[in-house]
């Protein structure tokens, strides 16, 4: 069975695909923001200091708070936009996989430490 045929099966379920697409894409956005902030924090002392929302936790506090806010807000906004619609699921799944992969890459020490500021 081809991937296109498989994802079209999701559209056969008697409910709109919009809420699923919103939840899936928001997860990708949350993971991507986490990876992006992790790398930016390493590359820039300004970003590093800005992300230090809590002195004891350090910049991890800002990275995780902003990533979770990005995840929840994007979910709410996308859900509001798509809740009664049927967007094609396949491109959203592909975009989400790419976003999560970039997010994981951004949190991988060998990667983000390559951007370390002096």
């Amino acid at each position: 069975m081809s991937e296109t045929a498989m994802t079209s099966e999701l559209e056969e379920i008697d409910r709109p695909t919009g809420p699923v697409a919103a939840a899936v894409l928001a997860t990708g956005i949350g993971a991507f923001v986490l990876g992006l902030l992790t790398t930016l924090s390493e590359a820039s002392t300004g970003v590093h200091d800005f992300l230090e929302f809590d002195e004891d936790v350090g910049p991890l506090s800002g990275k995780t708070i902003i990533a979770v806010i990005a995840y929840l807000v994007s979910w709410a906004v996308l859900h509001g936009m798509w809740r009664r619609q049927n967007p094609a699921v396949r491109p959203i799944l592909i975009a989400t996989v790419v976003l999560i992969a970039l997010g994981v890459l951004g949190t991988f020490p060998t990667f983000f430490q390559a951007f370390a500021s002096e």
Partner: protein
Amino acid sequence: MEFTNRETWTLIHGLILGTFFLLAFAGGLAGLWSLRTEYVTPAGIGERLRRLKIGTTAMAIAAWATVITGTWIVYPWYRESLAGEEGAGCEGVQVPTGECSPRDFLLSNVSGQTEDWHKFGMEWKEHIAWISPMLATLAVFLVFYYGPALARNRTARMLVLVVFTGAFAAAAIAGLFGALITKTAPIT
């Protein structure tokens, strides 16, 4: 036999919530895999689905609780800067002490080549762990949204399985490094 406050929180974060997460994952995985119309009766699907909703919700709650306690309660104790310039507080010690935090201890290399436990292990663990609750929450949403359709729609079921397993994989990386780092440099 007694635990300090810090040891108790480390146990809650790593062992109690971690075990709960693992159990919920195992139950959820088995439930999802076998939730097919050819395997169970309509009444059975209802019963399985109820358990699946409870299992996935429990896993997501455990994932959020684990990262929140880890980041906001345990991690500050790990990363305290106690050893001073040049890591003097860690000289001659075998384990972290009141003058040598676990992070100081690992970076000081006083007990062998340990700095990579922080520079790679802890750095990856503290970040990737946060992807797990987002994926686990997505799995919960999909289970509630699709409901009984999961039993007859293979693609929906596979989507939940992939998301669910992804949540576990992210947590497993964090959990494995957490256990190994705690073995090398425990929080006391």
